[in-house]
């Protein structure tokens, strides 16, 4: 009977603790704001040449949500490496709490940091470029963002588990940032890509989160996109949970958890 409240407490406390740890570094915090702003500014300048105000709104919203991906791509791939450096990975693995449940709030905290970036980009677009993103359905818009944050976090969960035995995982994470920006339709409509590329886009939860945010912003129904985002997020979480068990068993068998 106490299991569910106990798990909920563990998830909340871990999320909050990780959020505080991630927010402690002023350098990383500033970088988290500034890095997507460079690209957002470039996108605003390019779309402004177009002369279409709707295109600027498209870029404004896309650039803002782009921060979620940036927050997860590099940091999630290095999440377990960080625990390894801190010497806490073995403790986490040995804890009675399932390892997958420990990782989920860590990646959710990483994505939550991206919300700061989202706010900063919206503010930047408004102050410097006069971009006001109209939100026709505020409740659905917020719901879209919350679902996007959770779905992106589940992608990060899968990513962090997938690279647990890759010593230089951070390099892979850095590499994923541009493909994610491109494939998830943050700045460019996915319909511009070749058909086989759109299939990859549709398999990524942020694509549907972004679509839901755009639809709720425009007053359209975002429910289908939201449902697909949730389903994909759950699928990624399921695969990551299974993978974490397999990878940990392998690491134990070969004594490679520490990678020393």
């Amino acid at each position, binding site marked *: 009977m106490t299991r569910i409240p106990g798990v909920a407490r563990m998830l909340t406390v871990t999320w909050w603790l990780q959020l505080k740890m991630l927010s402690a570094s002023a350098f990383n915090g500033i970088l988290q704001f500034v890095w997507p702003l460079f690209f957002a500014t*470039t*996108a605003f300048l*390019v*779309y402004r*040449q*177009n002369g279409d105000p709707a*295109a600027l709104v498209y870029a404004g919203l896309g650039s803002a949500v782009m921060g979620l991906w940036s927050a997860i791509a590099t940091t999630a791939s290095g999440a377990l490496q960080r625990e390894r450096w801190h010497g806490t990975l073995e403790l986490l693995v040995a804890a009675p709490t399932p390892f997958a449940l420990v990782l989920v709030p860590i990646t959710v905290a990483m994505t939550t940091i991206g919300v700061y970036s989202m706010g900063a980009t919206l503010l930047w677009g408004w102050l410097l470029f006069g971009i006001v993103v109209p939100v026709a359905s505020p409740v659905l818009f917020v719901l879209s963002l919350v679902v996007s944050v959770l779905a992106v976090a589940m992608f990060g969960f899968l990513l962090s588990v997938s690279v647990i035995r*890759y*010593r*230089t995982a951070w*390099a*892979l994470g*850095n*590499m994923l*940032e*541009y*493909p994610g*920006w*491109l494939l998830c339709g943050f*700045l*460019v*409509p996915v319909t*511009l*890509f070749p058909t086989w590329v759109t299939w990859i886009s549709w398999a990524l939860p942020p694509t549907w989160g972004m679509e839901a945010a755009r639809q709720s912003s425009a007053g359209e129904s975002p429910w289908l996109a939201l449902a697909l985002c949730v389903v994909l997020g759950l699928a990624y979480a399921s695969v990551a949970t299974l993978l974490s068990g397999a990878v940990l068993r392998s690491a134990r068998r070969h004594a490679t958890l520490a990678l020393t």
Partner: protein
Amino acid sequence: MTSLRIFFIGGLISFRALFNWLSPWIYVPSLLIAPVFQVLLFAYLGRSAGVGSDAFYLVGNAVQYAAIPCVFAMANTIAGERQTQTLGIVLATPAPRLPLFLGRRCPSSSTGGWSRCSPWSSAA
């Protein structure tokens, strides 16, 4: 002659010791694949907005990406020495500063020039 030795041999040893780029697991994702996706991002951004040609974004991003290893590597040369706790020893040596640090800059700048080829080859 001492300055030349510090410039060439010191620079080479520093590059080999400090930089992870000698590992293909880091070099390939960081300096060969990432630039290609950056070019693709901006080329598609231009196509979507109807601004500029693909060549415009290719040339701009290739030059910009060539600069990244130069700037990043030079800064990281100092940071790497600090991290490995050898910065104090390096600064305490009587070696002249100019060849010492310029020598460390050259291999990373060459890497930047080489990485510029990645977007070009992808475009070809």
